[in-house]
């Protein structure tokens, strides 16, 4: 690893579904501890880009690097599986629909992966679960099943589950979009807390206020390209591109 190498780097990412090019030569870097928001209209490729970072949706071409290691290395199947499983342990991901494991308690949702992958003891696992759940304010629900939780609570557990792997990076794909409006804030607060702890985060969101208040940088995507990026005060207050202006205007109208 060279000193000049960025913490996360996406190089010339292209993604095609058949004929359709969903990501068109996207490059971006994120520094350690940085919090980046990705905004843009529906279908612009935000999720695809995010999911390319942990190779959930493999790129057609291009490279993804995390902390000096190529994530989407070219390797024979078996070796690649091992490599990517290793890489993914460092990349937490939070989904719009939580995707908690319904057959497991909150505790087991949080500890399953660390137990399987890091071989920690039951006692250590319990401590880990308590610590992570306390962090997101869900300790009292440790022995509940996901079906017994509200959407906001589920999402907080999903964040704890991801954090239990001690990731270097957290990806959020519209973490609050599926929530009732009154439940959004509790999840945002958890994310803000992570931001204060200098967790590196890439956040796909439709919540401009939230993006403006926690993010160091905003990336506006449209049609599979990065149209504009910069600090939130610039992108939100003073966008240089027409497409960005249009999107923000429409979004404001939509919000009202």
């Amino acid at each position, binding site marked *: 690893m060279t000193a000049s190498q960025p913490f996360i780097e996406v190089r010339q990412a292209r993604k095609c579904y058949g004929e359709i090019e969903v990501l068109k030569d996207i490059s971006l870097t994120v520094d350690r501890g940085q919090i980046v928001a990705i905004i843009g209209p529906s279908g612009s490729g935000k999720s695809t880009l995010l999911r390319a970072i942990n190779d959930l949706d493999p790129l057609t071409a291009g490279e993804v690097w995390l902390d000096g290691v190529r994530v989407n290395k070219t390797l024979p199947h078996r070796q690649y599986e091992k490599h990517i*499983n*290793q890489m993914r342990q460092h990349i*937490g*991901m939070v*989904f719009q629909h939580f*995707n908690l494991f319904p*057959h497991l308690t909150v505790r087991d949702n949080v500890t399953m*992966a660390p137990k399987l992958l890091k071989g920690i003891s039951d006692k250590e696992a319990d401590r880990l679960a308590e610590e992570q759940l306390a962090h997101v304010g869900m300790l009292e629900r440790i022995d509940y099943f996901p079906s017994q939780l509200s959407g906001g609570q589920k999402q907080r557990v999903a964040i704890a*589950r991801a954090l239990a792997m001690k990731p270097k990076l957290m990806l959020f794909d519209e973490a609050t979009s599926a929530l009732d409006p009154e439940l959004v804030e509790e999840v945002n607060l958890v994310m803000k807390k992570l931001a204060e702890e200098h967790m590196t985060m890439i956040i796909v969101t439709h919540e401009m206020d939230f993006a403006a208040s926690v993010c160091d940088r905003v990336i506006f995507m449209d049609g599979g390209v990065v149209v504009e990026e910069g600090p939130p005060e610039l992108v939100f207050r003073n966008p240089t591109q027409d497409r960005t202006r249009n999107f923000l205007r429409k979004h404001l109208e939509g919000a009202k």
Partner: protein
Amino acid sequence: MDTELMLKVYPFFLKAALVTVELSILTGILGLSCGALGAAARLSRFRFLRFLGAAYVSVFRGTPALIQLFILYFGGPQIGIQLDAFQAGVIGLGVNIGAYMTETMRGAIISVDKGQREAARTLGLSQFQTFRKVTLPQAMRLMIRPLGVNINALIKGTALVAAISVVELTYTAQRYIGSTYKPFEMFLIAGVLYMIIIYGTGRAVAWLDRRARIV
């Protein structure tokens, strides 16, 4: 209706019912095993295995179970497969119902939400760990009821082995008809005993399903 005769012969039918139960259990075990293998093949990464699985399902669902049984029992010796009637019954019916169970299990596995798999893989679980810890436990819950339907069909299907003279319920009824000339009574006893077996199994399946419900 000759109830006196019915009371006299029914103990012999009970013995035959035990054979039907035994046949059902062995067939069920074989069927579930074939189903698990079949589903694994159908969902395999390897094209050849997927092809084998699909071929198994279409052959055994696409022909009458009775013909399969006849080929095995009567045709088997011609190609060096010597089985007694009971063995042929278990194998024939088991492999047959396994084709249906293959589809049941596969259906349950693929109907587990894709997000579940994604969440597990995102945490770093391997494909196998994801299957064992996330997909399978959820699929098992989903497959209990439809497998119950397969098992119901299987129990009724055991009547077919009367045609290769396994002394189970249906065959026993036929034999007593030969000596008593009372088909109504004899089939009635057999029918009631089938119903008891099927009802009991149905209750067991419902119980399992309730227990496996996700809270």
